[in-house]
């Protein structure tokens, strides 16, 4: 029964939203992990790339290689437009936001440097930072409140003690909490620190002007709010950021300066080596075109309305606890919940099995964030709506959670999470 339900996903196209899986109309609430469904234009662009532009992007002088190179350039231009910078070569493509954050952190930091970050970070930022700490970089973690919001006065104080780099997520992947990046960036620059932002949860979801937010380096992923395929993402260098401050993470073939065995310095080649993900970037470009056509601002307004309805409906259910800012405009389309008397894994499984509602349970690769919220090590059930989430979906979720919470209220008390004592010993969580 379980196996049957989880097999095969119906192809997109028959319905505009394509939310039917094995005959069941699912409510997909895992968009913070990866968005689904994608606009049909994405798959079409990827098929077109494979059929008509299948060369190695820009490596060879023939027409297939040039067509592939043009697809990559146009993806670069689409990202540059999105974050309001003029030079597309300051968009460095990587596999994902994690790869981009690693490029920024390992490229910038040396033993003796000091970094200021927040207690709501994902492991994509925390794990490279902890490795750099082992190598002699000092790390200061600024606390956030119970809704995940940065304490700006502490942020200011920690920066005033001297810092090479300030880095923070734009919005939490657990509670959706949007940080005041404009103020944070201004304070970082006042303290002569560079400002690196993890935009994994926000690029595509919220309008963002790189320079207005005082951001020097912005990591993004293509497969979440941007609605593109996995394997796409990047690091955007602000117009004033000197590329020579950043050491490359990978070196190799670029199709340029081939007579030299040293890696070239010109952008984007300085930070990109090896064959790029042309097919993925063709899909990303189509996704950004789709979003731009819809206008991110109007998508956002529609999402906020749906999100508020979801939060308010769930908040009224006895035994349900919500994590994140209550006001939908203060978060992305993501927040977390727990139900009294029921483990989060049980809640997630019941929502999937009995109601075809797909969530993500556990620590969401963000143990620091769960410590801040007081939900470590058990974690939460995360509800991450997306562009295609409807009001009808919201009503289904509210009624399903009511039913699960009512059954939990009548069930015998569950034992505490068995891994609790083991997981609290180490800094790292049990899940990546």
């Amino acid at each position, binding site marked *: 029964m379980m196996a049957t339900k989880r097999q095969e996903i119906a192809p997109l196209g028959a319905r505009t939203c394509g939310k039917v899986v094995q005959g069941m109309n699912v409510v997909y609430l895992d968009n913070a992990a990866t968005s689904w469904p994608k606009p049909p234009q994405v798959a079409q662009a990827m098929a077109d790339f494979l059929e008509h532009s299948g060369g190695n992007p820009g490596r060879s*002088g023939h027409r297939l290689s040039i067509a592939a190179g043009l697809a*990559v350039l146009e993806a670069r231009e689409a990202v540059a437009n999105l974050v309001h910078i003029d030079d597309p070569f300051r968009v460095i493509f990587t596999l994902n936001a994690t790869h981009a954050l690693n490029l920024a952190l390992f490229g910038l930091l040396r033993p003796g440097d000091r970094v200021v970050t927040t207690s709501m970070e994902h492991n994509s930022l925390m794990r490279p930072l902890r490795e750099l700490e082992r190598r002699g970089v000092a790390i200061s973690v600024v606390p956030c409140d119970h809704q995940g919001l940065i304490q700006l006065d502490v942020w200011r104080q920690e920066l005033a003690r001297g810092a090479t780099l300030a880095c923070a997520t734009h919005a939490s992947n657990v509670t959706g909490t949007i940080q005041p990046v404009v103020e944070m960036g201004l304070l970082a620059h006042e303290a002569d620190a560079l400002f690196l932002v993890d935009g994994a949860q926000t690029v595509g979801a919220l309008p963002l002007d790189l320079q207005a937010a005082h951001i020097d380096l912005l990591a993004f992923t293509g497969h979440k709010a941007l609605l593109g395929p996995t394997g796409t993402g990047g690091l955007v260098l602000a117009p004033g950021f000197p590329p020579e401050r950043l050491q490359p993470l990978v070196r190799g073939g670029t199709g340029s300066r081939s007579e030299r065995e040293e890696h070239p310095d010109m952008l984007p080649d300085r930070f990109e080596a090896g064959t790029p993900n042309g097919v993925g970037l063709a899909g990303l470009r189509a996704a950004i075109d789709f979003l731009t056509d819809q206008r991110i601002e109007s998508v956002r307004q529609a999402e906020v309305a749906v999100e508020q309805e979801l939060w308010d409906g769930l908040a009224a259910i006895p035994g349900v606890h919500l994590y994140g800012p209550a006001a939908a405009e203060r978060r992305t389309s993501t927040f977390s919940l727990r139900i009294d008397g029921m483990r989060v894994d049980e809640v997630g499984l019941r929502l999937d099995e009995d109601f075809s509602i797909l969530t993500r349970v556990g620590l969401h690769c963000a143990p620091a964030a769960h410590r801040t919220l007081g939900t470590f090590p058990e974690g939460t059930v995360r509800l991450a709506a997306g562009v295609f989430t409807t009001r009808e979906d919201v009503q289904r979720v509210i009624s399903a959670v009511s039913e699960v919470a009512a059954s939990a209220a009548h069930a015998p008390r569950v034992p505490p999470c068995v891994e609790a004592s083991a997981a609290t010993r180490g800094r790292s969580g049990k899940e990546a």
Partner: protein
Amino acid sequence: MPATEARSVVVFHTTSAAIKADKAARQAGLETRLVPTPRHLSSDCGLALRFARVDRAKMEALLREAGVEPAGIHDL
């Protein structure tokens, strides 16, 4: 362009720059073609942009406007 017409090529530091210049030139109505870089001119980047020699001033202006710094412009 007719095969007998005198031609020039722009050579670049990166293939991304070559492709960007080609796109900008086409949008401006110049007749161009990306070609493998003539080996005797440069090994900077595998792609060069071939154009009619009479369009040289237009090409230089267009590169400036597109923010593309060429590695060189050579007559063929």
